């Protein structure tokens, strides 16, 4: 089951998320302050309007003849939020708290009492309404009637403003895109560094990183290139040493082979030639490993199925006693892009190992169902005892041999598997070992399809 992760894995994702969250908070706060400010202003204007009309209503009622008061009041145009009625009793209730001074100031209720004495109300009662944003103001006329004003101020609701929402989303979106772009751009050097390290792991001679960009990035790239150069030199020295040893051993081996031909004791000569064959195999393996022959060989279209059968046929020719334990299962033909000599060596090593340690080599070649994407799979199965699980990876170390096989009978150079793995990896594939459930070992190799 795939769970959705809130916290992204990548540095770019995390940075972008943190920035985006912070930006959203700042945006919301900023826009709220702005909106509240506007609401304040609106309310102020509204209050002014209400108070002006309230005062004009009072004056109208106050100045009108008593019999026409109600009619004139009804004819007055009153703004939203203001209701005026002429009653016998005040609606402002004494058991409720009066209008708080700031609101009273805003409504300019004091103006009512500042006119000439005959315009002043005989009595002013104020109170909160049943619901808080509603206020009642009752003004007693000289006649004893009450002008009851019901004032309702709408509460500030900045979040409900359409402009607020549109602005908020537009700004957040724009900033988000900008953050995404900037973060990707800023974290690209980290990704490039990771990719360069990955390349170096596969190929010591990978091209150096460009030392450009911000100071820190250029410095990191420079440090990385220096490290790569040192590794390259180290590997190069070792390779050269191995190649030199291997190369120089060829002349004495050739001499010994010739000398052996002059030996009279057939038995001794046979043994000596066998020893020399073994030495030559070791030298050849060392050279192949050290020089990484595959690097120089061009990649061509190659019938992998024919290559598999060729390797198996040659193995069967060399070990006629095991011919029945050697088999191929797979397509008659399968063309891949590969380096023929290198790939043949890799396959021969896997098949040779299977025969040497497992007494059988059954090769199963599986073509991908659809071209592209899926790799070509190759399995070499044997019928031997297998190897301990904790050694499955260790045997790919150069010169690493399992103790049990460290004798002259099954000898080996300890380079067969590392060479095979180098070659498969140079092709963009890989090879691993697994113990089979039915017993025996299987070497599983992949090649890009």
């Amino acid at each position, binding site marked *: 089951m795939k769970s959705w992760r809130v916290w992204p894995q990548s540095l770019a994702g995390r940075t972008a998320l943190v920035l985006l969250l912070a930006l959203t908070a700042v945006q919301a706060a900023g826009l709220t302050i702005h909106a509240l400010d506007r609401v304040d202003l609106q309310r102020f204007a509204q209050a002014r309007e209400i108070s002006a009309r309230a005062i004009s209503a009072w004056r109208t009622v106050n100045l009108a003849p008593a019999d026409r008061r109600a009619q004139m009041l009804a004819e007055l145009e009153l703004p939203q939020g203001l209701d005026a009625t002429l009653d016998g009793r005040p609606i402002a209730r004494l058991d409720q708290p009066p209008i708080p001074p700031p609101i009273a100031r805003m409504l300019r209720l004091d103006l009512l009492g500042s006119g000439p004495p005959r315009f002043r109300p005989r009595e002013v009662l104020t109170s909160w309404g049943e619901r808080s944003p509603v206020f009642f103001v009752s003004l007693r006329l000289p006649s004893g009637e009450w002008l009851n004003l019901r004032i309702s101020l709408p509460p500030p609701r900045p979040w409900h403003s359409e402009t607020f929402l549109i602005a908020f989303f537009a700004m957040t979106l724009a900033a988000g895109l900008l953050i995404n772009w900037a973060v990707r751009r800023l974290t690209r050097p980290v990704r490039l560094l990771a990719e360069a390290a990955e390349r170096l792991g596969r190929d010591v001679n990978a091209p150096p990183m460009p030392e450009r960009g911000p100071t820190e990035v250029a410095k990191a790239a420079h440090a990385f290139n220096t490290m790569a150069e040192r590794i390259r030199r180290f590997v190069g020295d070792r390779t050269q040493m191995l190649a030199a040893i291997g*190369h120089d051993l*060829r*002349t004495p*081996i*050739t*001499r010994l*082979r*010739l*000398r052996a*031909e*002059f030996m009279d004791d057939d038995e001794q000569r046979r043994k000596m*030639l066998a020893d*020399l064959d073994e030495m*030559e195999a070791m*030298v*050849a393996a060392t*050279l*192949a490993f050290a020089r990484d*022959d595959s690097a120089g*060989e061009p990649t*061509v*279209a*190659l*019938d992998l199925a*024919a*290559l598999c*059968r*060729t*390797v198996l*046929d*040659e193995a069967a*020719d060399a070990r006629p006693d095991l011919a029945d334990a050697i088999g191929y299962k797979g397509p*008659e*033909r399968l*063309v891949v892009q590969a380096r*023929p*000599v290198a790939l*043949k060596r890799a396959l021969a090593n896997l098949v040779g190992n299977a025969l040497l340690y497992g007494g059988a080599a059954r090769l199963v070649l599986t073509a991908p169902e659809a071209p592209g994407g899926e790799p070509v799979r190759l399995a070499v199965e044997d019928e031997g005892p297998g190897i301990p699980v904790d050694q499955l990876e260790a045997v790919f170390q150069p010169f690493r041999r399992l103790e049990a096989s460290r004798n002259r009978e099954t000898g080996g150079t300890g380079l067969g598997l590392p060479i095979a793995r180098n070659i498969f990896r140079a092709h963009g594939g890989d090879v691993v070992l697994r113990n089979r459930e039915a017993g025996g070992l299987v070497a599983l190799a992949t090649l890009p399809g």
Partner: protein
Amino acid sequence: MEPQPHILVVDDDREIRDLLSKFLERQGMRVAAARDAKEARRLWPLGRYHLVVLDLMLPGESGLDFAKWLRSQGDVPIVMLTAMADETDRIVGLELGADDYLSKPFNPRELLARVRAVLRRASGEAGAPKEPPAKAVRFGGWTLEPARRRLLNPDGAEVPLTGGEYELLQVLVERPNRVLTRDMLMDLLRGRQAGPFDRAIDVAVSRLRRKLEDDGRNPSLIKTVRGGGYVLAATVERS
């Protein structure tokens, strides 16, 4: 063939030179030895050599340059000794017209067998003008590249062959539409292949048919001839 073939060995290692000379002499050959191209050029007019065993890694003038010079002197067969797995040298050498090659450290018996095979072929073709080595040989849509020892299918993809399969195919391609009995094939292939030949040839033919997409029960390319022989039924084009 003359009773005693005369061989020129060119190798810069004194021990190998001496041992190889002794070894070949014991096999009934006359041997002259040179340590580099300069000495070999000096020796060249002094004898009529049937074959040159040439190490490609020589001090001074390279073995390849000397091989070129030898080619300009006549069609003496050359067996090259190359550094191990040095593909480019080998290809260049074979394209220059070396008749065979062995990589060091070589097996002396293998060298002897190759030398004999090359001498046999050379004497068989004596008098006939030596054809320049073909870069590519085409037959029935397939291409054989002798210098690279490889076979390309009609789509141009390389089809790997075992040593035995390759030798057999080469022999067949060199003699198209000619019936080759098992005995003839064995003779032509001797020294190039180890093992019991009789069965090996039948096995190699059946493997080769499979790789050439030739139906084993009704072959159209490598046909079986009644009485025990094979024939390559195809037009062969050299280029």
